[in-house]
């Protein structure tokens, strides 16, 4: 819940939810697009998995650089999660969407 911090600023739950939603939106979109691209590239087994991990981490890093302007100190305040928590959430969120589009485009192209 909201708490008063040392710098007297007050955080509100609704703002944090909106921030996390932005993060989720970017991961939803990129997971679908990257899943389709790995299907189009006809990646199979470990290559696809490595492609997923690498691109997802690139997306998360780009999020930190573009949206947070590299200011990683703001993460606990704006997301109520640490850096590893946010990276892990990005990974787990995009996993299912990536696999779905990967399977679909692979099947569509190879037939």
């Amino acid at each position: 819940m909201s708490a008063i911090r040392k710098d007297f600023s007050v955080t509100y739950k609704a703002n944090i939810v909106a921030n996390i939603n932005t993060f989720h939106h970017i991961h939803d979109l990129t997971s679908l697009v990257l899943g389709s691209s790995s299907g189009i590239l006809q990646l199979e087994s470990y290559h696809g998995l490595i492609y997923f991990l690498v691109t997802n981490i690139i997306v998360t890093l780009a999020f930190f650089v573009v949206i947070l302007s590299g200011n990683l100190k703001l993460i606990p305040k704006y997301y109520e999660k640490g850096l590893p928590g946010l990276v892990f959430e990005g990974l787990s969120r995009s996993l299912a969407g990536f696999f779905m589009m990967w399977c679909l485009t692979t099947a569509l192209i190879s037939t």
Partner: protein
Amino acid sequence: MILTPLFRQHLQQARNFRTNAAVISTKDVFKQKQKYLTEALRAGKFLKEDPSEAKKEKPVNPLSDPGSMDAIFGMAKGNMANFIPQTVIMWWVNYFFAGFVIMKLPFPLTIRFKSMLQNSIMTSDLDVRWVSSISWYFVNLMGLKSVYSLILQDNSLVDKMMAAQQQQGQPNISMPGGPTMDKMMKGEAENVQIVEFRSCLDGIEERLFKRFEISV
């Protein structure tokens, strides 16, 4: 004792006061608000019945109260509406597309998945990567979540949050033996009482100078 949403609002008011105490402008206003909230909560001003009388009553069975019955059935209906269509669709997919191989997965799986993913395909030597419709159904079940959130996204999320916080239709089921409302209010009164007033304007000059790196 039946809890009405109004009680929750008063508790929420006290919580908001504690959260936002730092942005109240002067100490007098803070003291006034603190005094009012403490006294009102402690005296049970917001309670419908006198707490001493309510204690004598036996705890009401939530199943006998028509209001909470509706709430319980509402929750049950919400759950049913979620999992019955899933079960029906899964059964239908399994029945209608039985015996068809529909796609080749881009990743290999161990032989253990064979019985699950190649259900009703009677070839013992087929690679597990060739799967039947039910596995595509599972992949969709997980993966369509992100598609839904992209399609059904709206920008009024914050408004929704606020509305959910003030929602009136929350089920108010007071469990027998749980904390009664007057106890919760007394606890909140103590929380309000120990809040110390530290204005956000305290030492604002130093912080401002520090922020813009001006040495005095």
